[in-house]
C-alpha cells in the first residue's frame, strides 16, 4: 500500500505513487533548470509534460488508474535528459541508445519503488573540473558558483581543500540513470515541496482569520504537518550523512589526530612578528617554485631537466612532484601552525593584521608567478590548457585501479 499523489499535466489529471511523483518532480525541475535562459523554456516544458501525459495514459487502463513509481522511472528513462539544443558544449550524446539507458534503472525497479533518497553525486553538466562543486551545490540547494568560490577561498587558507576535492572526485559517483539523477536533485525537490505546503497552509490560515475556532484548528494542524515535514527532511539528511560516513569508513581509515608535539618556546612576541612575514615570503617563493615545477613537468615532461623514472605516466609523476613539494614545505607549515596554535592558546597575542599580511604575501607570490609565466614562457599557456586532460587521465587511471582490485 502506497500513498498516491494527484497531479495534472496539460489539463489532464493523473494519480501517481508518491515515489514516482518525487522522481517526476525532480525530472521536470532538472529540465527547467537546464533550460534556464532559453526563450522557449515554457513551451518546451509544456511539450515535455504533454509527452509524459501521453505516456502515462498508455500505461493506464479501465481497472488501473494509478501510475506506479517503476512506470514513472521507465517513462523518465524513455524521455531522456532534457538538453538545451541552443547551449553549446554539452557532453551528452544526442543519439544515446534508449535501450542502453533503460538497462540501469530496470534493476533498481525490481528491488521495489526507488527509495526516496537524495545522494551526493558529481554533476558533469556545467562543471568546471569534475563536477564536485556542482554536485555539492545541487545537493545543498546553493548556487554552484558560491561553492566554487568557497572552495577556492578554502584552498587559500587551508591547502588541503584541493586534496578534499580530489578525494571527492574519486569517491563520488556520476549519476548514470534517470533514477540516480532524480536522487542527485532530490533535496531541492523535497525542500520545494516543503515550501509549497507551507505556503498553501499559510493561505488557508489567512482565510480562516475571521473565525477564531477554525483558525485555532488550522494552526494546530499546520504546525503538526510542518513538524512532520521538518522531521522528514531532518531524518533524510541524517541518513545521508550516516551513509556518507559509512562509505568514508569503508574506503579510508580516519587519519589519526595528533596534537602538535613540539611547542615553541614562549619568546618575545616581536621576534615572532618580525619572522612571520619572512616565513610567508619563503612559503610564497616555494609556491612559485612548485608552480614552475608543475609547469615544467607538463610542458617538457621533466622537472627542470630531471626526468621522472622511466615508464612512469605523467599523472603519477605529477602526484609524486606534489608529494615532494608538500614534504619540502612541511617544516614551514609546522612552524606556522605551531605558532598559530600557541597564539590560539593565549600564550601571546598576534594582531590579525599579520595573518592578513601573511596571506597577501602568499597571494602576491602566486600572482607574480602566473605573470612571469605569461610573460616569459610562451608554451606554458598550452601546457596549462592541457592540464584538464592530464587530470582526467589521472582520474581514469585511479578508477581503473580501484575497479581492478
Amino acid at each position, binding site marked *: 500500500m502506497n500513498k498516491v499523489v494527484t497531479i495534472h499535466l496539460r*489539463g489532464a489529471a493523473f494519480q501517481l505513487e508518491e515515489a514516482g511523483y518525487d522522481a517526476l518532480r525532480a525530472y521536470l525541475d532538472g529540465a527547467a533548470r537546464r533550460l534556464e535562459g532559453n526563450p522557449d523554456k515554457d513551451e*518546451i516544458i509544456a511539450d515535455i509534460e*504533454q509527452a509524459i501525459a501521453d505516456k502515462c495514459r498508455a500505461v493506464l487502463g479501465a481497472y488501473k488508474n494509478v501510475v506506479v513509481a517503476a512506470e514513472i522511472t521507465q517513462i523518465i528513462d524513455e*524521455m531522456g535528459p532534457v538538453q538545451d539544443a541552443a547551449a553549446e558544449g554539452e557532453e551528452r550524446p544526442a*543519439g544515446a541508445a534508449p535501450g542502453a539507458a533503460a538497462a540501469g534503472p530496470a534493476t533498481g525497479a525490481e528491488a521495489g519503488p526507488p527509495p526516496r533518497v537524495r545522494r551526493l553525486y558529481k554533476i558533469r553538466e556545467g562543471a568546471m573540473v569534475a563536477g564536485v562543486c556542482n554536485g555539492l551545490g545541487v545537493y545543498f540547494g546553493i548556487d554552484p558558483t558560491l561553492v566554487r568560490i568557497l572552495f577556492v577561498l578554502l584552498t587559500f587558507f587551508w591547502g588541503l581543500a584541493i586534496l578534499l576535492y580530489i578525494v571527492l572526485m574519486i569517491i563520488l559517483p556520476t549519476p548514470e540513470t534517470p533514477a540516480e539523477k532524480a536522487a542527485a536533485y532530490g533535496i531541492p525537490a523535497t525542500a520545494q515541496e516543503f515550501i509549497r505546503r507551507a505556503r498553501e497552509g499559510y493561505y488557508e490560515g489567512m482565510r480562516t482569520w475571521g473565525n477564531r475556532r477554525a483558525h485555532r484548528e488550522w494552526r494546530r494542524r499546520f504546525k503538526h504537518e510542518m513538524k512532520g515535514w521538518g522531521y522528514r527532511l531532518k531524518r533524510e539528511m541524517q541518513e545521508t550523512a550516516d551513509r556518507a560516513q559509512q562509505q568514508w569508513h569503508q574506503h579510508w581509515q580516519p587519519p589519526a589526530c595528533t596534537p602538535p608535539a613540539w611547542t615553541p618556546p614562549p619568546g618575545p612576541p616581536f621576534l615572532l612578528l618580525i619572522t612571520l612575514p619572512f616565513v610567508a615570503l619563503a612559503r610564497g617563493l616555494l609556491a612559485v617554485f612548485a608552480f614552475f615545477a608543475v609547469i615544467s613537468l607538463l610542458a617538457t615532461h621533466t622537472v627542470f631537466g630531471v626526468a621522472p623514472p622511466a615508464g612512469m605516466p605523467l599523472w603519477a609523476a605529477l602526484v609524486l612532484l606534489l608529494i615532494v613539494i608538500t614534504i619540502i614545505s612541511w617544516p614551514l607549515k609546522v612552524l606556522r601552525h605551531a605558532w598559530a596554535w600557541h597564539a590560539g592558546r593565549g600564550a601571546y597575542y598576534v594582531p590579525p593584521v599579520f595573518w592578513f599580511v601573511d596571506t597577501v604575501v602568499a597571494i602576491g607570490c602566486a600572482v607574480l608567478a602566473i605573470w612571469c609565466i605569461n610573460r616569459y614562457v610562451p608554451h606554458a599557456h598550452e601546457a596549462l590548457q592541457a592540464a584538464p586532460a592530464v587530470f582526467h587521465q589521472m582520474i581514469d587511471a585511479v578508477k581503473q585501479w580501484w575497479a581492478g582490485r
Partner: protein
Amino acid sequence: MGVNEKFNPIRKGLLEFLVLKIIAADKVYAADILRQLRETEFATQEGTLYPLLSKMRREKLLDYEWKESEAGPPRKYYELTAKGREQLRETTEYWQKISGTVKDLGRAPAA
C-alpha cells in the same frame, strides 16, 4: 572509446539535418519524428528532440500548427518554412560533398 561514442558529436550535428528531411517529406508531429528515428543509428529521446525543434522554430526553419487528433489532445504538426527548405537543399549538397570526400580520400592517386 568505441566507434559509437566517437561518432556522438557527428550524430548530434546531423540530427537537425535529418529532422529537416523528415519534416520535408510530410507534415508530422513529434512522436512521428521519434518513431522514424527509432530504428536508425539516430535514435533520439523527447528530452533532446523538443529543445531542438523549438530552436529550429526560433531560427525560422520550421513552423507548426495545432491539429485535432482522433484520440487525445490536439497536436503540433510541423512543416518547413521557405528558409527551412533552402537550408535542407544546402545541407544536402554539402553532405553529398562530404560523403564524396570520405569515399575518395586515401585511395590510390590516379596516375
